[in-house]
């Protein structure tokens, strides 16, 4: 009767297949594919970041040297903006109208993407600007301000040392996925070194939002919210006042001034000149280009990044090695007739009495004396060859920290250079060099490069009579203990007993009144300081002026190096600068008879002597 009865089965089969396909697709979408769940969360959950206050930086006396201050970011919700008085707006924030137009051109371009979101229009406006804006904010619908902490610097000191913070960029986020766009990170100096302590932990509130990016409600009544943990205050070893004084002394000079407390290895002062003014630090994005293009490279921390020949200061090391090796006694006498002459080679020297002993050699900084000492170390028959002797000598210098990184907590620290036997093999032919070939090393010239920090560490080591703590910037506090490596004494390979003789010579260099002493200018009333001048020849112009010193002689409190590029003799600039710093630290004031010297230093301008690529 019904010839097509069987077609019901076909149709029902088709229905089963279609429903089966749908069910499978649902299984795929809802069970197998996890991606949709993630997208849904990104869609609906809005994490509103709560930024923690960044840790402050204190000096060794508890004075705040880096603080936080409230500033404001001006936000804009392009969707809500109505035509406004651009000129008035620009006057408030000191803006160019072109800037405003460019911004709004961008907003129009990405309006779909932006939707109802608010964006940062201008970062870090001052409270005054913000207040002006608030008064007139009814004129600018769609604009608002949000508070934001920025850095502020009560002392104008240590710009270079403190470093700056800036907003993370895309490249940085790629390497450090724990940061998000809009976060700030320490980029240089202490801000960089102590970033993990200073940054604190961000918190967040979770909100549910709708498709138009409007906040609807708190997610689960804040059950999963996280409160922000403020950053830890970091106490530095820096003496803020001394740092400021040091920067004053180094003004208009190119070089470094480093002071260490010998008993602890704590860095009291570290000046790299020219440096960054703290004004510039707090608004680094504004000055960044200017700083980078400055021919004197203010961003460059010379104290740890600029290896230079140490000059005569290095004679102290050679003297110590000679004493330890037994090739030199304090009474060893060498003659010097305006230099050291062997065959065609001549190492010149200035006019001074001859012959002299070890103390006098330090006091008068005799070149010839150390040529003899150096040769007797390297040519010591017990090592068989010059090369062996050299290797031994090199081990000594490394025990002082030369030619390697000291592993401080200062970012960007350089190792400097200590030549190797292989290097001389390449230079002169394998085994074809003698102690005479490398005689410059005896007076701290030639293929040797050490940073001012190395020299400051040498001063501290001599002050301690044979050991040092790795110099560091973080003060050990119960809340914030320093790394174990800063609590370990490092002894040099020279016995502590030999240091007394060298110290003796350094004392004479400053305090000998009988004539011939090189550093009498560094004499400080009421304090017995010890020091050694250096005049480092270099291919870039006038000699570099170098001076290391520590004081008082017994129980030293401070060890200082001053390295003034193209400053001439050690006694000309470096010795006054270093001794003034010591005097300020130990006495608190500068003696009246040294006021003139202080003024000369303040006024001194050596910038024109420094060759720079403009």
């Amino acid at each position, binding site marked *: 009767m019904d010839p097509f009865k069987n077609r019901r089965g076909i149709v029902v089969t088709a229905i089963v297949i279609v429903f089966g396909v749908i069910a499978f697709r649902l299984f795929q*979408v809802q069970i197998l594919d996890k991606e*949709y769940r993630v997208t849904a969360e990104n*869609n609906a959950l809005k994490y509103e970041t709560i930024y923690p206050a960044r840790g402050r930086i204190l000096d060794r006396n508890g004075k705040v040297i880096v603080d936080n201050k409230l500033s404001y970011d001006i936000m804009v919700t392009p969707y809500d903006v109505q035509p406004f008085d651009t000129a008035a707006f620009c006057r408030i924030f000191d803006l160019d109208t072109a800037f405003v137009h460019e911004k709004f051109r961008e907003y129009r371009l990405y309006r779909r993407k932006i939707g109802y979101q608010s964006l940062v229009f201008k970062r870090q406006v001052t409270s005054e600007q913000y207040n002006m804006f608030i008064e007139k904010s009814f004129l600018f619908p769609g604009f608002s301000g949000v508070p934001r902490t920025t850095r502020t610097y009560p002392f104008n000191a240590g710009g270079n040392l403190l470093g700056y913070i800036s907003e993370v960029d895309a490249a940085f986020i790629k390497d450090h996925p724990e940061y998000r766009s809009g976060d700030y990170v320490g980029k240089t100096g202490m801000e960089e070194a102590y970033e993990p302590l200073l940054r604190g932990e961000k918190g967040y509130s979770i909100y549910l939002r*709708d498709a138009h990016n409007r906040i609807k409600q708190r997610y689960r009544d804040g059950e999963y919210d996280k409160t922000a943990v403020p950053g830890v205050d970091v106490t530095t070893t820096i003496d803020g006042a001394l740092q400021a004084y040091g920067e004053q002394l180094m003004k208009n000079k190119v070089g470094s001034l480093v002071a260490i407390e010998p008993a602890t290895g704590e860095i009291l002062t570290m000046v790299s000149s020219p440096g960054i003014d703290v004004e510039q630090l707090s608004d680094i994005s504004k000055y960044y280009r200017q700083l980078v293009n400055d021919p004197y490279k203010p961003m460059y921390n010379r104290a740890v990044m600029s290896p230079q020949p140490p000059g005569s200061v290095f004679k102290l090391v050679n003297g110590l090695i000679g004493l330890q090796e037994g090739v030199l006694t304090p009474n060893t006498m060498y003659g010097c007739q305006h230099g050291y002459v062997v065959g065609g080679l001549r190492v010149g020297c200035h006019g001074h009495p001859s012959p002299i002993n070890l103390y006098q050699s330090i006091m008068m900084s005799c070149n010839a004396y150390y040529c003899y000492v150096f040769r007797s170390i390297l040519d010591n028959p017990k090592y068989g060859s010059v090369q062996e002797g050299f290797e031994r000598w090199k081990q000594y210098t490394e025990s002082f920290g030369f030619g390697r990184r000291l592993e401080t907590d200062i970012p960007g620290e350089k190792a400097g250079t200590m030549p190797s036997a292989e290097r001389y093999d390449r230079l002169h032919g394998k085994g074809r060099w003698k102690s005479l070939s490398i005689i410059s090393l005896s007076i701290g010239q030639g293929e040797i490069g050490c940073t001012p920090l190395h020299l400051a560490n040498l001063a501290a080591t001599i002050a301690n009579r044979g050991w040092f703590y790795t110099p560091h910037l973080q003060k050990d506090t119960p809340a914030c203990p320093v790394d174990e490596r800063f609590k370990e004494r490092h002894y040099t390979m020279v016995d502590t007993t030999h240091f007394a003789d060298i110290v003796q010579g350094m004392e004479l260099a400053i305090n000998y009144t009988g004539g011939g002493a090189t550093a009498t200018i560094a004499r400080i009333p009421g304090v017995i300081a010890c020091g050694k001048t250096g005049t480092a020849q270099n291919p870039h112009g006038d000699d570099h002026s170098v001076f290391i010193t520590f004081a008082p002689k017994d129980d030293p409190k401070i060890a200082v190096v001053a390295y003034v590029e193209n400053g001439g003799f050690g006694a000309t600039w470096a010795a006054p600068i270093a001794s003034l710093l010591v005097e300020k630290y130990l006495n608190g004031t500068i003696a009246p008879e040294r006021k003139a010297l202080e003024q000369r230093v303040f006024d001194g301008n050596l910038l024109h002597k420094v060759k720079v690529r403009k």
Partner: protein
Amino acid sequence: MPELNYKKLDWVITGLYLLLVVFGWMNIFSSSVSEDGFVFSFKEKYVMDLVWIASALAIAVLILFVIPSRVYPAISWPFYGLMVLLLVAVAFVGVEVNGSKSWFALGPFRLQPAEFSKIATAILLAQLMSKYEFRFTNARDALRIAIVLAVPILAILLEKETGSALVYLGFLLVCYREGMTGWLLVLGLLAILFFILTLVFSPFTAIVVLTALVGVAAGFYRRRPVTGTLVTAVVVLLLAFLPRLAQIPALDFLGRFEPEIWAALLTGTTAAVLAAVEWFRHRPQIRNLMMGFLLGLILIFSVEFVFEKVLKDHQRARIEVLLGIREDPMGVGYNVHQSLVAIGSGGLAGKGFLGGTQTRFDFVPEQSTDFIFCTIGEEWGFLGTLAVLAVYFTLIVRLVASAERKKDSFVRIYGWCVAACLLMHVVINISMTIGLMPVIGIPLPLLSYGGSSLWAFTILLFIYLRLDMEEKSY
């Protein structure tokens, strides 16, 4: 007139109906309620929906117990005529919603005649096909059915309401059940297949596939499947080498080399010759096959024209998104992308009633109407969507089974029509939300918000239940 026996009411179908309506209201509530919770105001969709549900239930009671069933065959023509009139009228005087002019505005109420014209069409189809002498092989009968289907479809297309028009194709299933040749459905599916093949790959690929298909089919008709397949394989391989010819410099004089043109010329000529030969030999099967092949070629070459010129921009874009030709999750693909995200984020058990974030916070557009399935997917999870699927499946299959038991072919055909309408709506709507079909805006029966749709499906279903109640089954 037979005695009404209310115990014969199909309680399973009635129960499933109520289940869907109540579950629908819950999801509409969830997707439209604000943070303030339930507010009794007619501005709120979930309150309005209660009005629609109450009125729908009243209509159901009216149909079940008051209106005599014999009126339906009697009024089939006038009712159909009135509906077509309304469909045409609305295209001119209706209000425009989302780009289609398919609504009558009666004060605060809006009615969509396209929903109701399905009822009229179903009754008329049942009436026509249930006639004793009706045969699909009779050209007059077949033509009459074609016209009855085509008129509302064209009227609805006039309103730019493509989705609703598509639903009418569901009646072809009923026609098939009643004797229409199945080839029509097969050809329709093949046409869609080649349309997609041409779009996604290239006309050349489509021609090669078509050649292979026809070649193998011819082999089967000749009862030499192996030989046929081998010959086809050789031909297809030769065709596949055509694009290589373009690289031969000696052939440059032929002008710009278009492999699909050459392939069509070669195979088309062969097919035409074969068709002519077979015509004289009176072997209609191969002849028809070859004609089919030529039709296929025409289809393939018209795809580009149809796609670029006939379809609207948004339709073209939706198809491109579906076929993966274009990725645009923020633009045209936004709906589907957000819909998939909402459903996918539901997981196995869902986020719980009122727990959905995607559907409640407007990420999915039209979430209480066309995209209500997203709310179900997000809040009730895979278990919920599967349950809804199962309910629809049971409803449809039970309708078919019930209809098949009817002695009166009018009731049987009408039952099939109801099942077909439900099937088309359910499959198109759900497939669209899970990215199996392009976005076609039609409601999910009984679940979606919307008075017209709810009323229409209530009327459609309860007329059948009333007929079922009176009718003697086998």
